[in-house]
């Protein structure tokens, strides 16, 4: 697989890996059948993403996109994090091979799933804010 140096750098030294003990929003997307699972942990205070971390089972691109997505949203207001697109993740990584674009989609969805979970914990219906979530995100949807 021909990855950019940036992808390889994030793969070799992923940022914000692991669980977040005091997370108040956790989202998981993907499934083991298609080989990628991403779980995003958020600690949100006063509408700001104070801390973020991830755990990912997947290929080099899945790990690199998770890492990059956490960097792009850390310290940002929720509204900004919701605007994170897979395209932005791809660009920040200096591109991805075409067969790996779905990994960036997964990263975008993981952020949204974690924010949805945060709203749900606050007793707020996330759908009007975050949009429809891909609950049973199967392989066809991801790839």
């Amino acid at each position, binding site marked *: *697989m021909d990855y950019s140096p940036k992808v*390889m750098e994030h*793969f*070799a030294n*992923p940022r914000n*890996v*692991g669980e977040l003990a005091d997370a108040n929003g956790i989202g*998981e997307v993907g499934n*083991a*059948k*298609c*080989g*990628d*699972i*991403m*779980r995003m942990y958020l600690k949100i205070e006063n509408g700001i993403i104070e801390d973020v971390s*991830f*755990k*990912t*089972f*997947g*290929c*080099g691109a*899945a*790990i690199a996109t998770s890492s990059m997505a956490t960097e792009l949203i850390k310290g940002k207001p929720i509204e900004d994090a919701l605007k994170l697109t897979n395209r932005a993740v791809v660009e920040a990584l200096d591109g991805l091979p075409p*067969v790996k674009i779905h990994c960036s989609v997964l990263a975008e969805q993981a952020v949204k799933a974690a924010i949805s979970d945060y709203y749900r914990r606050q007793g707020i219906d996330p759908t009007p804010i975050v949009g429809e979530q891909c609950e049973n995100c199967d*392989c066809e949807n991801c*790839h």
Partner: protein
Amino acid sequence: MQKLIYADHAATTRVSDSVFAAMLPYLQEQYGNPSATYAIGRETKHAIENARAQLARLLNAAPQEIYFTSCGTESDNWAIKGYAHAMKSKGKDHIITTAIEHHAVLHTCQSLEKEGFSVTYLPVNSEGYITAEQVKDAITDRTGLVTVMYANNEIGTIQPIGEIGAVCKAAGVVFHTDAVQAVGHEPIDVKAEHIDMLSLSGHKLSAPKGIGALYLRRGIVLPPYLDGGAQERGRRAGTENTAFIVALGQAAEDAGKDMEARQKRVADLRDRLIEELSKIPHAHLNGGRSPRLSGNVNFSFAGVEGESLLLMLDMQGVAASSGSACTSGSLDPSHVLLAIGLPHEIAHGSLRLTLGEDNTDEDVDTLLRVIPPIIERLRAMSPTWEKYREE
């Protein structure tokens, strides 16, 4: 610079020194067309016939039964499609194969299904073996061809080829085997094993990529694969790839020497890897222990995805492969790992290490030093590892 640990010999091999030396003169000095009348043409013709004899000896075949092709895939296509089309006139339209064949065979069979042939894909057991009984039970009066791989490229399992050959012979069914992974590494006797057609590839036994061969038992007639001149007895026309044919001949001769001693040395390395890697928690050896290709090690590590594992190994100078979908660009993990019953998520986490005669004890030491920490690191960042860890 970091030393490369090459552990992907099932993918391809380095051209050996003796093979390289043997083929070189046929590029710039002995460049004559083998069909030509003058001396440098006749000499290349002799070189080709010498290579044919060298390869025939390795298989206990007659030189006239060997046809040079461009690769194992071509040999498979020619043998299977060619014989399938030939058998139609005898009222036969059924082919038997296995679920774990290489794509060169599987996709060829699928292509024949579209033409109206029916194909039985025999399942393997959880260790990756089929039995001659299964083949026998699947043969009907419409069966004309059985094609079963000699040894599997992913999990290294060696099928009971001699027994299957005997079953086919008794039933009057032609038997083809894709022996790409076995030739040069396992003793093969086409006569004793009742093999009618056998495909092989040069680059798996220290010849270059781009040369293969098909053994066709005398009496098996296939339609020509390439129409044209009289090369390869008119069945596979086109000017011969002289240098590579000479290389394959030399590789075959080298492979025949001390095969048993070489096998044992490589198998000892393999067995040490298997013993030690088995100690990693939730590591699963794919494919039975015996009979197994002497260089093949294939493990799944729960909670770990194959491509990530390969990338991290690559960073440490280790070349290996995986049955993970991510490495193939397809959605599904290896059909072989699914056929032996692995769940998808486990199949995604496979690691194939295939050793060759150039690997050393020190290489195995290095592999055993670098692999466990990588598994640990990937598991630490894996959300699927948690459920296994707690078991």
